[in-house]
């Protein structure tokens, strides 16, 4: 399985080359184009209950699509819905990533996707809900962001503060606490940041340069209100 990011920048696509018999899981609706040797199957990852819990608990899609090169080698072009960068990670069976629900684009078949419950404070204040996707296993993992994707590398015990709506993915060797952006409650919200995540290394945190919620609020003011 080989991958290549086409048109890097705001409107990229990822090209995945599959050998005969190989397959890849992708977010439903991610496929843009593919060779005629590739079959598209809709699959409820983790069975019906797993899919149901993912749908209701994380707000992620009920079905994933599986692209399978069943009649010979072929390639597929995948793209996310929102404008923004694509990044390809290689999981080696040891490193694991937590991914916020819109961040997953595709994963090799060796990647396991779980919904995992977060702690109360993280769930309540983190803005990601109580359940989040955990990616483990071995193989290629394709993530997408809204805006550019930025990688923060943390040495052991090194700290970094991230606005929670800019999070894309973070390795499970990191820890984080949710805290107010400033020392006062009022100032925290008037500063426009509200809550932030204080990450502590070692590990990697991927953030996106645009905030989807902020963008939504900005767009909403231009939409005429119908009677």
């Amino acid at each position, binding site marked *: 399985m080989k991958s290549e990011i086409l048109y890097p920048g705001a409107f990229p696509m990822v090209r995945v080359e599959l050998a005969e018999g190989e397959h890849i899981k992708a977010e439903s609706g991610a496929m843009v184009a593919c060779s005629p040797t590739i079959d598209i199957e809709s699959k409820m990852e983790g069975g019906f209950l797993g899919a149901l819990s993912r*749908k*209701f*608990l*994380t*707000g992620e899609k009920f079905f994933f699509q599986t692209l399978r090169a069943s009649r010979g080698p072929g390639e597929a072009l995948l793209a996310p819905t929102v404008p923004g960068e694509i990044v390809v990670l290689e999981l*080696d*069976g*040891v*490193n694991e990533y*937590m991914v916020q629900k819109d961040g997953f684009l595709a994963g090799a078949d060796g990647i396991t996707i779980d919904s995992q419950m977060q*702690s*109360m404070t993280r769930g*309540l204040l983190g*803005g990601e*809900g109580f359940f989040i996707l955990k990616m483990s*296993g071995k193989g290629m993992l394709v993530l997408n962001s809204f805006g550019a994707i930025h990688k923060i*590398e*943390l*040495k*052991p015990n090194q700290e970094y503060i991230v606005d929670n709506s800019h999070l894309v993915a*973070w*390795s*499970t*060797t*990191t*820890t*984080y606490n949710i805290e107010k952006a400033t020392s006062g409650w009022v100032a925290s919200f008037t500063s426009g940041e509200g809550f932030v995540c204080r990450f502590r*290394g*070692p*590990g*990697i945190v991927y953030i996106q340069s645009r905030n989807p919620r902020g963008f939504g609020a900005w767009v909403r003011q231009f939409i005429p209100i119908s009677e």
Partner: protein
Amino acid sequence: MWEQITVNESRKNHVMTDSHPNALCFGDELPAGGSPCLVHVEAQGITIAFTVGGKQQQAEAVPFSSVTVSAGGLDHDQLVLQWMGPTGQRTLYLKNPDVIRTFRQAAPDQLTMPLERVAGQVRHVRRRHRMVWSIVGGSLLALVLGLWFGSDLLVELAADRIPIEWEQKLGESAYRDFLAQHESVNDGPTVNAITEMTQRLARHAPNNPYTFEVTVVKSDVVNAFALPGGYIVVFTGLMKKATSAEEVAGVLAHELNHVLQRHGLERIVKQLGFVAVVSIVLGNSPGLGGVMKQLGVELMTLKFGRAQETEADLTGLQLLHRAKIDPNGMITFFERLAEKDGSRVEWLSTHPMSSARADRLKAQLAEIPKQDPEPFTFEWTKIQASLG
């Protein structure tokens, strides 16, 4: 999950085959995401072998004596080993349960204490998570139960604080909207009759702050409804189905009491309150939260509706009695509407007629002292004839 004995099969294989990395090592010259490495626990310490480009490199030996242990990772469930290597500080993250177990077994006495402390920390974190979740779950349950059983009182208290003018504005906008889409009867004997009935009922309502406005709407649908603030709509379909003025007056008395008891307002307050509570608890998530919110609001409305209907029935009956209108009309009309004959009786969908409801009304009627009803100034047969 380094305490747990149950092991994911795929991870077990990593140890068995001895070639797949089973830990992540961090250090100044290593990549920030950690370097995958293969850890072996030996008698005197651990050996670490890095794989570079698919080739295993010379294993590095670390004696137990130079290692400090702690718990780490996102869920505080990984064993972290730290020591000073030749190239600086090294940090090793272990989460493979097998490796952790072997490490604990092989570790010398001076590491037993710190390991126990770490295990204690992990248990503490888990316990705290469980406790927080059960406390939150418990209080959520208590909140829902409290809302379900104690909300009527709270809602009434809240509704009492809302001025009548607000309620009227609220009802008026809905009323105008509805009338704009329907053809109404503006004058004639029908309107006069309905106005006479409403005024007679309103005169006998105790402490009535409302001025009632009634509109007759041309429609074959059998329906009538009241909006907050005293706006009442009666459909001609309902009037055609009534055999006497008392029957229509019964429906009017019921609807008038929805207004007088501020049922619409209470319902709005309750829905707003419930939505607010659920939003605070579950956030504005599109998944579970949205479903729960909808379900909760629907359930609340349903339960609230029943209690309100009963109240409007009973107070409506008393109002009829005070206004000297024969209350039997109300009961017989309700019962006749329940008989299915194919016409669109929408009133029943919001006012389901059950035998229990009729029985309750009859029991109430039996308690009220008998009196001679005063007739209306119009003849019902003529009114009905004018409806065509």
